[in-house]
């Protein structure tokens, strides 16, 4: 296999890492029954904060830490407004998305174009020397390795542990979880803030690695958070499937770059947004099984076709946690 292709694949894994952090953070938050719509702004804000802290302290570790803290604070505000004060999750999240973005552009202004530190590469000894696999998977930096682990960790936590089962319960049927002794709103606070901290790692992962530096409005970060939210749905609130979505998205973006020279008539900006129509299409595919008219249409079909199509739809189908977006009253 030629090395340009291998480094392309390695690049996809690295480019998907921040989206993975954001999508898995959002998956945990939404599993608890809270929609966090602020992701797009939070990624831009934490990218700026992480970069500024890393420049001032000359430490990328502190940059990531600052990003996680700011990301957690944003969602703490969201949790307070929506869980304690019972405001609309969509409304508060949307306003936070815009506010965080403008805050980032305003406060980050003096640091535009400043050169800053980059997370250093850390090939894993032995593993990095495995032909092909080593080159693709094990010649990255620590946050990228952490993104692999995060997928498995989140999957294990959600589906294989008792607290994970409880997490599913408070998002699916909070009354039942409450009856069994779960403090629903306290756990929602916890998972909202945890999800926010993970989103807050996505920001510095851009500004200190994938898209190193801070360039204000042209940093190319506006829009990524919305993608991460779409990937959460595509992923059916399952970390494994979300990872698949993130890698698929990064693959499409890479494809756009590779195809660019052979399609001179199409401006680069068009190819960069090519994943979005596909994202709508995939959302359509995973959601269409939930629509009522599909059931009616299926009922009119012959037995065998109906079985085939309904199995296909069920395999793709993605239904949100039952109580997503619904506030819970302890009384």
């Amino acid at each position, binding site marked *: 296999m030629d090395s340009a292709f291998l480094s392309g694949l390695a690049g996809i894994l690295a480019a998907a890492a921040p989206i993975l952090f954001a999508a898995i953070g959002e998956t945990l938050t939404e599993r608890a029954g809270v929609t966090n*719509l602020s992701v797009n702004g939070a990624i831009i804000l934490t990218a700026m904060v992480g970069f500024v802290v890393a420049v001032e302290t000359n430490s990328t570790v502190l940059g990531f830490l600052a990003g996680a803290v700011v990301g957690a604070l944003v969602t703490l505000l969201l949790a307070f*407004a929506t869980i*304690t*004060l*019972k*405001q*609309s999750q*969509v*409304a*508060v999240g*949307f*306003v*936070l998305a*815009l*506010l965080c*973005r*403008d*805050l980032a*552009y*305003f*406060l980050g*202004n*003096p640091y535009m174009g400043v050169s800053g530190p980059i997370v250093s590469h850390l090939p894993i000894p032995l593993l990095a020397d495995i032909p092909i696999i080593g080159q693709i998977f094990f010649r990255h930096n620590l946050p990228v390795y952490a993104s692999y682990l995060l997928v498995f960790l989140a999957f294990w936590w959600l589906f294989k542990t008792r607290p994970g089962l409880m997490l599913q319960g408070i998002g699916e049927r909070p009354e039942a979880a409450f009856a069994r002794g779960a403090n629903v709103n306290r756990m929602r606070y916890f998972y909202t803030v945890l999800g926010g901290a993970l989103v807050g790692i996505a920001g510095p992962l851009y500004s200190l690695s994938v898209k190193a530096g801070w360039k*204000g409005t042209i940093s190319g970060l506006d*829009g990524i958070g*919305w993608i991460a*939210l*779409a990937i959460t*749905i595509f992923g059916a609130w399952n970390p494994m499937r979300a990872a698949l979505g993130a890698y698929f998205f990064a693959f499409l973006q890479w494809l756009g770059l590779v195809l660019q020279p052979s399609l001179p*008539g*199409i*401006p680069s*900006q*068009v190819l960069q*947004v*090519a994943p*979005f*129509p596909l*994202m*709508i299409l995939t*959302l*359509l595919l995973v*959601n*269409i*099984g*939930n*629509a009522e*008219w599909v059931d009616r249409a299926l009922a009119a079909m012959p037995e065998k076709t109906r079985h085939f199509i309904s199995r296909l739809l069920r395999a793709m189908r993605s239904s949100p946690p039952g109580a997503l977006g619904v506030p819970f009253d302890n009384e």
Partner: protein
Amino acid sequence: MKSFRWSTVGFQVLAVVLALAFTSLVLMIAGTPPLAAYANILNGAFNSMKSFADVAVAWIPLLIVTAGLLVTFSAGLWNIGIEGQIMVGAIFTTGALRLLQDSALPSALIIVAGFLAGMLGGALWAALAGLLKIYGGVNEIFGGLGLNFVATALALWLIFGPWKRPGVGSMSGTEPFPEALWLPLLPGTRLSGWSVAVGLVGIIVIYFLLQGTYFGLRLKAVGRNARAAFLLGIPTSMYGLLAFLICGALAGAAGAVQVTGVYHRLIPSISSGYGFLGLMVAMLVNYQAIWAVLVSLFFAALNIGSIQLPIVLKVDSSLAGVLQGALVLFFMLMDGVRRRFQPKS
């Protein structure tokens, strides 16, 4: 007014104070004296007739967009695809003007055709989000967001491809239209009396549609409780789709204003972010048409007033967005606090 209370007003005043305090804190972090920044914004927006006319130039499309959003919000829909609807409206207007500019038709008629095309384009784009929601089960927030990006790509492709300027395409947009196809401007300003008329007619029509018609009443019933409305015999899907169509047509009209009255060509950023800003205005006024007129004017003044901040105070003009976002956020927080602590009557 269902139940006017002074304590409600008190919490709203508190929200404004907290938003100003937050923004002042942000300014101090950036090392800028807050009062100087506010004075600068006010000065930039109101120091002359010309700058006030510029505020109105931004106010009109924002007002039209907000009027449309009042309809979708009434139906309980989050039309985040509004940015794309403005964009596609502007694309359709540009297309119609390009098609007709060499014809023998009087220019007034061509401009009217451009507006109608814009409204059609915006409505089509909104219908797409509506159909995706109703028949595809795709949440309108994500369908709309995706369609926003597609609309931007469409505009870029047209500007750099089929509609590029003689020579080479650039981010500065398509070839400007001849002056005969511009909305006539008020002397000494960049403001057209015609766009002001379109904006005011738009919000008045929507006000009466929502407050004074059976359609508006049923639409609000759908928004409050879709299930109950459906059981009462209201075709909820059709009402939702109609709300999308009306909002999209208004967004398209805003795009047409931007093309015929402001930029006189298609540019990549033709929506100027007015769609998202309109969502904020609609949330802040709690979906009441009359307040939308004033608040959209105030938000437009913040946008225009902050343009000169980078030159005068060396800070970014996104300060306007910080103040706008803080206002909406603290209004929601204070509303929550009031509901929690105010005794129910």
